[in-house]
């Protein structure tokens, strides 16, 4: 199973949508609230070069925004 991290903020609508979508698919993930964890926020920005949420990390690859097609393609690779 792929290791999945979601970088999000509590107020961000697309973050909520992304998390609800992952849950509806039964995909387990670790949620990182970057509004609380500044170190994680900086790590996220360093990894992707992007200052926006949500971002999802699947086996080290960062996908910015809520992009179900890109997420499913990445998950397929790791199966």
């Amino acid at each position, binding site marked *: 199973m792929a290791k999945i991290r979601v970088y999000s903020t509590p107020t*961000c*609508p697309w973050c909520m949508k992304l998390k609800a979508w992952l849950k509806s698919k039964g995909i387990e993930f670790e949620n990182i609230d970057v509004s609380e964890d500044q170190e994680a926020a900086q790590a996220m920005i360093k990894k992707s*070069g992007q*200052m*926006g949420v949500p971002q999802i990390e699947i086996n080290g690859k960062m996908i910015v925004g809520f992009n179900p097609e890109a997420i499913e393609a990445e998950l397929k690779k790791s199966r």
Partner: protein
Amino acid sequence: MAADSKVYDTVIIGAGIAGLTAAMYASRKKMKFEIISSDFGGQFMVSGEVLNYPGIIKTTGVELSMTMEEQMKFNNVNVKTETVQKVANEGENFKVVTDKGEYSTRTVIIATGARARKLGVPGEDRFAKKGVTYCSICDGPLFAGKEVTVIGGGSAALEAVDFLKDIVSKMYMLVRSDRFTGHEYLIDKVKSNPKVEVLLGAETTEILGDKFVTGLKYTQGGKENQLDVKGVIIEIGRVPNTEAFKDTIKLDDHNHIIIDCTTATTTPGIFAAGDCASGHEYQYVIAAGQGCMALIKAARYLANKK
């Protein structure tokens, strides 16, 4: 031409509040229809609190969106995820062309909404998601403890400032006009906030940075100035998503689809609702009302043609 059995009663374009409301009514009327949109939810996905929807005291854009998703399931509405490229005349009917196919239909309801207006200055695209954002409630928390600039003087800009007040260390508000144009209660909130420095009559000319935003240039009273900030939040209004329809129906000077009080456009059989239409008042409840009106008028148009 396609056989009659393949011709839809209506094709609804857009899945924000206006389009979804039309689709719900179409389903309940048992019409032959499709609702097509490149995404589900429209602009309500990026709004924060919703405090003015009749029957709901307090909710958020995303909660409302999720409730509507459930409501669509309840009403057997399935949104097709396709991008509409154009609507063309096809004899008495219309042809809706998407990136994945074509649909023949007797009426069309356009509810494609609007999107954030861009400043159009150097650096804006280069630093998008690298310090430039159009969604303060999404990306605002990433500016914790930093200095930022909010550009705009309407309600959306004022709301952004209010949202960011407990997150950032200092905010500049660049307003091109010589006064605010938003709701009075929001203006009062911003004026009483010691973290905010308001610059009126200030026009942004360039966004600066290296890997990320480091500042911006603006002119005020004929003089060029610079602010050193890590974030630039742009809230300067919206532009309607109407490019695909400009050859088929008339748009107004601001590219909104011209409709009358029945939501009819200048082309009989095509109706428009919500933020893409010429009402120029961006409200959920107006979008819902116009979506409903458009569907009922489309059904009446079909009944009168028989």
